[in-house]
């Protein structure tokens, strides 16, 4: 492949300063926040506009070279690093503008490369918020998060980042630009996700860039709550905890529940967050405490410490990785499968003699994200080999249990294909991929496509 010729073409599009083939630069784009082996691109390009992204995609199609969109590089499943053989990394962080805050219609439209904290802080200063933010919000971008589709703080009340999307601007693998939602009507802005035909937004949510590159998104916006209330509990009874999570979720009493520590048979620590005006918060807290009171195993650890965590949450989530980087096995399960899955994952990690791991849950309205983080130091290849062996077995088992993986990247691809290749869903996805991306240039390998 003549990457020199491609570099010149890309330089004409974005300016020579925003494309690099320097080996030391390329190596810095070979990893994400996870533990997959490095895979470096041949070129990195940093566009500023949708038009530039479109031109880049057309050039990649002409040369039949893979392109990989990348936001903050803070996911863990190698969705933003190139496939074996390399390609072009399109780093989206220059596309970091808030395009419109529409307070009349309660929507915000931004470029896909803005970081979440930037977006949320700007909105908060004007008295607004968005529904969901990832725990890695200081590095993470809407383009990457919606592509998962993202979950985070707000899982029960707001479900996912995908559920916050009213419309997207996407660059398709042939360079065409598509607006979804109500702005599919050229006479309209984005204010409603549906109405003009199929929900094409949904085609791109969760596809991790396999069907196109997101350059803009319009999200639902909510008045910033008058009050937040948080309370932390511990119990030794995992089944009791999951039962409580289910009751809190189906009664829609909380904004989110975070379960950062699960040691099956020993300890579960969790906190909940309620947001709203003072009366609404008080009413909800009273109902929550009524439900908690039915569980004699629960011990309340108070509010002060967790309130401090809430105030520092964007930074404190990063402290978890003082133990090293982590192989992540994150997937969703319904409430009735969570306890058994927790024990199963623990048994696999223990059998592989993983030195340091944590298990966590972040409940949703009908189940929970189930998280296992298997830590190893960057330069500890022996432990990394153990972690990777365990992660592979855990992904396989998670899908057997009926799990729905969260961020999939290239890590889950082979396992998705293994378990789903005979389904109509899989055939439809493959057919859409073949139709939209006949040269298979668009982030090939993610989600198994």
């Amino acid at each position: 492949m003549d990457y020199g010729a491609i570099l010149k073409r890309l330089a004409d599009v974005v300016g020579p300063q925003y494309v690099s083939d320097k080996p030391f630069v390329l190596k810095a784009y070979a990893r994400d926040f996870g533990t997959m082996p490095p895979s470096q691109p041949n070129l990195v390009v940093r566009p500023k506009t949708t038009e530039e992204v479109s031109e880049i995609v057309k050039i990649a199609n002409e040369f039949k070279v893979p392109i990989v969109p990348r936001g903050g590089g803070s996911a863990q499943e190698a969705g933003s690093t190139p496939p074996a053989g390399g390609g072009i990394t399109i780093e989206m962080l220059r596309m970091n503008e808030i395009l419109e805050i529409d307070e009349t219609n309660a929507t915000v439209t931004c470029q896909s490369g803005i970081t979440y904290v930037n977006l949320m802080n700007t909105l908060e200063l004007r008295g607004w918020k968005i529904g969901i933010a990832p725990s890695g919000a200081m590095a993470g971008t809407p383009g990457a998060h919606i592509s998962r589709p993202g979950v985070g703080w707000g899982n029960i009340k707001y479900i996912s980042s995908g559920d916050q999307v009213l419309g997207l601007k996407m660059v398709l693998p042939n360079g065409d630009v598509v607006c979804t939602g109500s702005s599919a009507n050229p006479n309209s802005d984005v204010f409603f996700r549906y109405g003009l035909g199929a929900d094409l937004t949904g085609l791109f949510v969760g596809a991790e860039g396999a069907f196109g590159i997101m350059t803009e998104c319009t999200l639902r916006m909510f008045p910033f709550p008058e009050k937040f209330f948080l309370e932390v509990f511990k119990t030794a009874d995992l089944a009791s905890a999951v039962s409580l999570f289910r009751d809190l979720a189906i009664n829609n009493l909380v904004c989110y529940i975070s379960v950062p520590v699960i040691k099956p048979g020993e300890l579960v620590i969790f906190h909940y967050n309620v947001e709203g005006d003072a009366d609404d918060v008080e009413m909800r807290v009273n109902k929550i405490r009524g439900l908690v009171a039915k569980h004699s195993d629960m011990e309340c650890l108070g509010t002060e410490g967790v309130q401090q965590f809430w105030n520092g949450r964007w930074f404190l989530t990063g402290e978890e990785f003082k133990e090293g980087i982590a192989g992540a096995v994150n997937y969703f399960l319904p409430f009735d499968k969570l306890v058994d899955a927790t024990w199963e994952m623990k048994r696999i990690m223990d059998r592989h003699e993983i030195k340091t791991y944590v298990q966590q849950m972040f409940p949703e309205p009908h189940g929970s994200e189930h998280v296992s983080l298997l830590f190893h130091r960057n330069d500890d290849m022996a432990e990394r080999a153990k972690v990777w062996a365990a992660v592979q077995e855990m992904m396989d088992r998670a899908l057997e249990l009926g799990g729905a993986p969260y961020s999939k990247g290239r890590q889950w691809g082979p396992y998705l294909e293994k378990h789903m290749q005979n389904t109509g869903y899989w055939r439809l996805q493959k057919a859409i991929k073949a139709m939209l991306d006949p040269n298979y240039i668009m982030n090939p390998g993610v989600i198994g496509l």
Partner: protein
Amino acid sequence: MATSRIPASRLQALRKEVYDCSRCGFCRVWNWKGVDWVCPTYPYTEAFDTQYARGRVNMAQQLLEGEVDIDETFLEHLAQCTLCGSCGEHCPVGIPLFEIWTALRADLVDAGVMTEHQAAVADNTVQHHSIFGPARRAPSQAAVTPHKVDVLYFPGCQTVRKIKSIGKSTEELLGKLGVNYAVLEEDACCGYPLFDIGQLDAMKQAAEYTLERIKAYQPDVVLTTCAGCYRAFTGVYPEVLGIHSGLNFQHTHEFFPSLAAGKLHEINRKVTYHDPCIMGRHMGIYDEPRELISSVPGVELVEMYSTREHALCCGAGGGVLSAFTDLAGDVGVERLQQAAAAGAEQVVSSCPTCVVNLKRSVAKAGLNLTVTDIVDLLNEAL
């Protein structure tokens, strides 16, 4: 392009810390809790990953792992760091990033890898005792013959060559306060700029030369108005170079408060203090300069959005002012915009390099702000 394997002995000593990086990327931008850009220069560069801390740690890992293609761009991406310490301050893993950057720079210099600019700064300092090279003209007065003094004022390269007003204010202050003092008129450099660019051997030569000049005055106190000189004398000399001079070095905030107490007249003005990275994040000195500014009757001290340990670098440190002048100016403008947003009429700092960079950035920022050192404010008030 040279494919090089660098011995990197200093980096090897920090190997564990280099590999502690989780690649979370929190060292780029916050937009939260008084921190916008964690890395002050990143937004004004081409902004590849190697132009802020996460990518630079990756570059350190590349050096530890073997052969690296080192070219001008490689050195440029490293040298665009102002060594402000913000990335280390805001790293959730707590990696000592400043130590990694200085080790990386020193290892490259040891291997003979440096930019022409870096080589010139070292040569200037060793040959001419100033980072700026030979003086264009002789000092305006005959060099003072060294003699025993109570206080020796050591102005430093920036003040002597680039912002003489700080030296003038300091001398006027000392005179008004009746201090028995002399000024080290001749060129003599503490060597801190050489520490910044990894030229530790050259720094040691500069240190030995300069200390000899200082000791000729047998001073009870060596007064400096420069943050870099102060950290060199009190920190880098003993901790990095192994030089224990036995001298009593004092900066403005230590020397003047007791002497000036009760003697300052009123200045009705809104003033903000720009924390020099060296004084703040590197030395933990935040309150004392603010107390000294507030001791001027009528002065209202206002704080910028980014302040104290979260302060935005002025953009000049780490050799950036001289090597990437426009880049330093871009950051300087952002800092001045923070000062204006705080309602300040005057920006006061305690580092001549910060003052030089912010002062030259005022026009570019298009703001009606005055930028001075603390001694300028004190001198006006005395």
